């Protein structure tokens, strides 16, 4: 399959919130954590090697889609931002991965 053809067939079927490189990377990282786990904003930024501004933009979009929950809290008087995948975010991510795999030929 040519790239052009693949793009034409692939893009419309995939969740547009996840189907962008940066947000996909954020989703993969959050999905690598346990279902009951959360990560601080700085650690997530370090894991993804993104700028703070850039990560914020993508997290906001994921939060709007209710794929991600962002909690601002305090730990020992220091403000902390915690990020976690929601249950619907995990379902959407699993569905996305399944959809991507279904678009590709079976590995030989």
């Amino acid at each position: 399959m040519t790239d052009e053809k693949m793009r034409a067939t692939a893009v419309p079927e995939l969740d547009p919130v996840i189907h962008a490189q940066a947000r996909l990377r954020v989703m993969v990282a959050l999905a690598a954590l346990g279902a009951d786990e959360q990560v601080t904003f700085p650690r997530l930024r370090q894991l993804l090697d993104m700028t703070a501004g850039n990560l914020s933009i993508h997290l906001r979009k994921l939060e709007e889609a209710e794929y991600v929950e962002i909690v601002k809290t305090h730990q020992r008087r220091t403000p902390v931002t915690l990020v976690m995948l929601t249950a619907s975010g995990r379902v959407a991510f699993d569905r996305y991965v399944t959809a991507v795999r279904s678009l590709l030929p079976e590995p030989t």
Partner: protein
Amino acid sequence: MKLNRFVDSDNEEPLTADASLAVIEAERDRVAKRVTFNPAVMSGIWAVAWFVGFGCAYLAYGSDRVIPAWLGPTVAATFLVAAVVVSMLYAARINSGISGPSRTSAAMYGWSWMLGFACLTAVNIVLANRDLSSATITLLWSASSLLLVGVLQLAGGAIWRDWTQFAIGVWMMICATGAVLAGVPGNFLVQALAGGGGFAVLALYFVAQRRRA
């Protein structure tokens, strides 16, 4: 270009399906390695520390020693202290910025080892200053260390509902008795081979378990 790579993907060309899958697979492995605690690493560290440390203690003991007498305790102390430091750094790096009930359980389990051995060290040092022979003091250290390792492995087995880890705990407790019966310097051999071996078996078991998952 490298700087802009992840700046705003919405302005980028749409991902192809195979590029997307490549991102998923590469990132999943990379992130998992950095955030998932691998118990095989911890057991491996302690297998090496016990095997080398107590192995040297055995080789440096008595008149027919193979290596200089001072080398035994020096190597043992160095490897055990190094194992504590490496274990703490590894756990801190994996858990940094991540929280959740299972992380809390794991952290409390880690502290159980630290506090258990800190207390064991204090008790043994006080006892060693009583009228005990040097052989008795050596056996006290061997047996109490193996016993505590065994009990903590039982606790680990209970937390993660893992019968293999539980069985290794039982093995370590049997070795505690074995070390006392073996006497000095056989106790060092029990610790190096049976104790270090116990850790090694556990490490291999965790490796196999992750391969299957």
